[in-house]
């Protein structure tokens, strides 16, 4: 029966497990649980793949009608879509269940997290992992790979580093969006749809050609929730194309800063939310 014990305990018998063991124990058992219902797991994977695929199809249909949109062709947009959807899917895989906060709050699940010796937010994040989203990430990755091969990109070290930094920062931005939305749920009853406007609207915005946006959209999704700089602006930089008004291509190197901003906002919101929940400040 020993093998059914969590792998977290597979260490020296007398040694207490490390700090990370708790998270590893939960996550590895979540992964096993998801994979043990095989039929469900494959349906979930297929569904997730289809979501990514159809979102790509929606972009393609527009380009099927016109050759270029806002200065980009379909080949170009594959690059934008690829970076954006890959980052979004990975963020969803790791942080996606944070959008179950309304349920956690209603069912009192959060109280249980308080009884355990780990930070509450870390427990919420590591309470689940959405493996099915790997399939969707695959659509993003595929689109990115095709986009990279079909476009003329000058492959310098700087551009390679930029691509890597962009993907990581974009993932961080989308992750922070989910944590931010989770924090907002402490204040709003039935408010998930409001935050979805920005979390999922943000994903939709990140895959778009931001040059066609109106000024308010540029403020909202260019800077407040910095979507344009997670994929569109870096893609312009890689393609050697000029940026539209308000979004110069040198901003491409600023994605990590935008990621920091978004995480700052997310953690601040979460903290205020926790305060509100405990009744300290509100």
């Amino acid at each position, binding site marked *: 029966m020993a093998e059914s014990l969590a792998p977290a305990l597979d260490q020296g018998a007398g040694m207490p497990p490390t700090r990370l063991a708790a998270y590893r124990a939960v996550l590895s058992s979540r992964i096993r649980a998801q994979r043990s*219902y095989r039929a*469900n797991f494959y*349906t*979930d994977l*297929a*569904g*997730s793949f*289809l*979501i990514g695929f*159809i979102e790509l*199809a*929606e972009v393609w*249909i*527009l380009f*099927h*009608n*016109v*050759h*270029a*949109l*806002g200065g980009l062709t379909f080949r170009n947009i594959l690059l934008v879509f690829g970076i954006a959807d890959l980052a979004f899917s990975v963020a969803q895989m790791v942080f996606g269940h944070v959008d179950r906060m309304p349920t956690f709050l209603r069912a009192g699940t959060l109280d249980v997290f308080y009884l355990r010796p780990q930070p509450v937010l870390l427990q919420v994040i590591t309470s689940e992992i959405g493996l099915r989203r790997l399939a969707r990430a695959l659509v993003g990755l595929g689109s990115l790979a095709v986009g990279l091969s079909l476009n003329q990109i000058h492959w310098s070290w700087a551009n390679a580093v930029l691509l890597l930094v962009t993907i990581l920062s974009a993932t961080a931005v989308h992750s922070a969006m989910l944590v931010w939305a989770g924090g907002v749920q402490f204040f*709003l*009853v*039935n*408010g*998930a*749809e*409001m*935050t*979805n*406007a*920005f979390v999922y*609207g943000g994903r*939709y*915005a990140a895959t*778009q*050609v931001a040059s*066609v*946006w*109106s000024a*308010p*959209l540029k403020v*909202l*999704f260019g800077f407040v929730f910095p979507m344009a700089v997670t994929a569109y602006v870096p893609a312009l930089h890689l393609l050697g194309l000029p940026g539209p008004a308000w979004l110069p291509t040198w901003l491409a190197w600023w994605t990590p800063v935008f990621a920091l901003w978004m995480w700052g906002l997310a953690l601040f919101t979460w903290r205020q939310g926790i305060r509100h929940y405990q009744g300290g400040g509100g």
Partner: protein
Amino acid sequence: MPVRLLPYWRLFLAGVHEQSTYRLAMLGGLVANATFGFLKVAMLFATVRAAGGTLRGYDIGSMSAYIWLSQGLLGSVNLNGVSDFAERIKTGDVAVDFSRPVSPQGAAVARDVGKAVAALGPRGVPSVAIGVLVVGMTMPTTAWPYLLGVPSLAVGITLSAALVYALATAGFWLIETRGVQVLYMVVSGFFAGLFVPIALFPGWLAAMASATPFPSMMMSPIDILTGRVTVARSSALLGIQVVWLAATVTAGLVLTRAGRRTLEVQGG
């Protein structure tokens, strides 16, 4: 009203009332509708302009009408496949529904349609208002589109409720219905013309869409209401909608009966 129909009317009103109590959720939904609406405006207007001002019968004004009507209908046409009835099957509460002297299908659909109608006010009207006041959109000035459009809208809303009900009956046989629900969510939005109007689809894809009930839920009422299609074509679309509704309700009836038998055999 015949006494037999009275319970469904009451359930419809309960749905109306229930929906109007969630004011904040309504506001949230409106924020979401508007945000997505403006993003759609940016992309679709740019597409129409890139095509030289008109594209497959759309100009800026009619594209705007499509966008804001479709956003306004999001609170009323169920494109996510989530329903209370699915939850009731999962929790076993459905046994209570079966013990009542009303049809569970009629009850669930009446209530959902009530909720959908209640959402037209706080979510539909402001969306259209944004379209008219902020963006500008063209709507027909003759009576026919409205005379045919209103019943078309009613059928579309009812069809989506009936379809989601039929979908929920999968729960009688499957332990986990999330996969089915996600599949519905992805396919229904796409083929109902939520993000891109079906007229912009390449021919083969448009043909695929018209083989499903989804355009009848949203695209057809919008096409009729905005006067994008002729009166004759509108009547034909309405006819197709009614056929899909009849087929869906029948499927729901059959599935409910089969599900009930399954439940009785397994003892819940």
